[in-house]
């Protein structure tokens, strides 16, 4: 069991080191002539207006929230899906109930208008 995860650790470390090495090599090859104008933040060529901190609307939080709840729900459903072939109809009804309860949550969000992007 552990050697599979050991392979993943090696694989992910190489997967992250490869682009890093490429960027480093490109860093050596590329010229380095920075200038005040060149490194100013790019805003379609005109001077930046106002500070870089802008006010976000609350819908970002709402979408993140609904994603979180449904992510946790799906993760709880995966063990059921793996054991699906060995479960009787009674167990399936329980999982269907689990999904329906959270479908009611989605219906509430839809009804309250939390799903619209203003």
């Amino acid at each position, binding site marked *: 069991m552990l050697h599979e995860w050991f392979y993943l650790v090696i694989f992910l470390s190489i997967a992250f080191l490869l682009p890093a090495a490429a960027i480093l090599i490109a860093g050596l090859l590329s010229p380095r002539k920075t200038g005040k104008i060149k490194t100013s933040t790019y805003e379609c060529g005109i001077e930046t207006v106002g500070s870089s901190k802008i006010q976000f609307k609350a819908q970002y939080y709402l979408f993140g929230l609904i994603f979180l709840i449904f992510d946790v729900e799906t993760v*709880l459903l995966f063990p059921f899906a793996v054991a699906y072939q060995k479960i009787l109809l009674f167990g399936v009804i329980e999982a269907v109930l689990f999904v329906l309860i959270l479908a009611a949550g989605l219906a509430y969000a839809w009804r309250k208008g939390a799903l619209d992007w203003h």
Partner: protein
Amino acid sequence: MIPLSWFLILSAILFIIGLFAVITRKNSIAILLGIELMLNAANINIITFWRYLYAPSGNLDGIILALMVFVVAAAETAVGLGLILSVYRRRKTVVADDLDTLKG
């Protein structure tokens, strides 16, 4: 193999750091971060005891309890951040100390 006590020491240290964060930070989102850390430390403990004492006998209490900790942590973060945002919208502050209107 790794003796059991090492995992417990690690989770104790993480829990204490989380506790330290909750007490000293003023920003309520940072307090939430501290709570997340404490929940993680508890989760390490649960899985450690499951693995060392109950896994060979095929008992699954630890895994289910860890899953419940995930569910509770997700629900707590969702509602906690919702409250912080609505407080921020009305009071324009996130610092926990300013919210003292209930004080006598």
